[in-house]
């Protein structure tokens, strides 16, 4: 596992330094599993993951803009375990009486691996157009947050549907310019 991550990091770094990072970048996956993959190709898998991640960002933005109301909107987009994590954060947003202004975005996705049950990607999440305000419109945005974060995102694949299982900042390389 560690060796593959080093390969990914090295490859990404080389691609970024050489100035030719096609959009999206595809990293060779491990040997294919025995079962027929749901996605016919790396490109297809990557595209599906990106679409799922963009939907996740959009719904997260809406929930945060509503001050944490109706978090169940995320249930169809994330695994039950991850949903509990979302609820904790959303609970704090609601209790604090704050809401998000502006939308997140993502770019420069790179495929890490995919199988019939899972897709992992790296992607840049951009929060620079977002801010948080309190009930009186006062800006309370954290001054210490990083607005550009390269995340490793893992999706569980079931019946062609992707559910976000984990999203974690990835520090080996940056997909954000």
């Amino acid at each position, binding site marked *: 596992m560690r060796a593959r991550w080093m390969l990914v990091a090295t490859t990404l770094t080389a691609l970024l330094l050489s100035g030719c990072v096609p959009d999206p970048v595809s990293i060779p996956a491990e040997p294919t599993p025995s079962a027929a993959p749901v996605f016919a190709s790396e490109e297809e898998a990557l595209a599906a993951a990106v679409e799922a991640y963009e939907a996740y960002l959009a719904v997260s933005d809406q929930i945060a803009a509503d001050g944490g109301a109706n978090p169940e909107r995320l249930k169809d987009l994330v695994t039950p375990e991850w949903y509990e994590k979302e609820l*904790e954060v959303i609970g704090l947003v609601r209790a*604090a009486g704050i809401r998000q202004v502006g939308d997140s975005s993502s770019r420069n996705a790179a495929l890490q691996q995919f199988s019939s049950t899972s897709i992992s990607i790296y992607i840049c999440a951009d929060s620079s157009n977002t801010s948080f305000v309190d009930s009186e419109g006062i800006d309370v945005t954290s001054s210490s*947050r990083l607005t550009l974060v390269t995340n490793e995102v893992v999706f569980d694949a079931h019946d062609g549907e992707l559910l976000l299982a984990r999203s974690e900042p990835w520090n080996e390389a940056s997909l954000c310019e």
Partner: protein
Amino acid sequence: MRVTAVAALTLLFSSMYIASAESGCTQIQAAAGLCPSATTTDTDVILESSGGSPGSNGSNGGSGGVDASWPDSTGPVDPFADCIYALNSRCLVPGPSRAAEAQPITWADIAAFRPTSGTAAMEPSGWAVTGLDTNFYASSGSQVHEGALLGQPAAVRFTPVGFHWSYGDGSSSSLSSPGAPWASWGVGEFDPTPTSHVYDSPGTYTVTLVIDFAAEYRVGSLPWTSIPGTLAVPANPLEVIAATANTVLVDRECTRNPRGPGC
């Protein structure tokens, strides 16, 4: 800073970290600056599982004294189990498994976020001589309220930073230091100090002091971080009887010599 628990939570929330049972951050978490791996401060803090670990729950200061009623159970109950945010030994934001307990924030919760009022004092005590400097000073120190955020010890610290005096004669002043008794300054009675005031006319005046507090928070082993804005908290009022020097001197003399002039 708005004087509400909600606003205080907001300000705390806007830069605090969340400890999670598993690694990773949600998008809302990252946008709100609550993702330890996605902030600009040095974060080598190892975040542990939040399952049930209460963090510090000592209470210190604050005037909220409402007892929280914890759910009944056959065994000992950990009041901080699945508590997202606690302050002054009270779970203010229960976690998902205790969502049924969530109540509207009460005035007691709001009180818990307020610093304890400071004390206004004066020299001479309770009386003044018109035309001479009357020394007013405040005593107030830093206060720390301790609690927990998702299993991490959390604390809020209030520090007095502004002193707004209203002298009751139509004048007021805003000072950045509390002042001190004459003895501390090494000056004599009725000598001017940076916080003294002169009454021009005899009369009875009510003096009010409002202290501005700045707030900081800390989570886990991270350093204190400032919260923008200040909280204004009134201190005790002072009653002042101002009289002319003549009157005061005569009073003194007559006490010594009841048959003297003017008695």
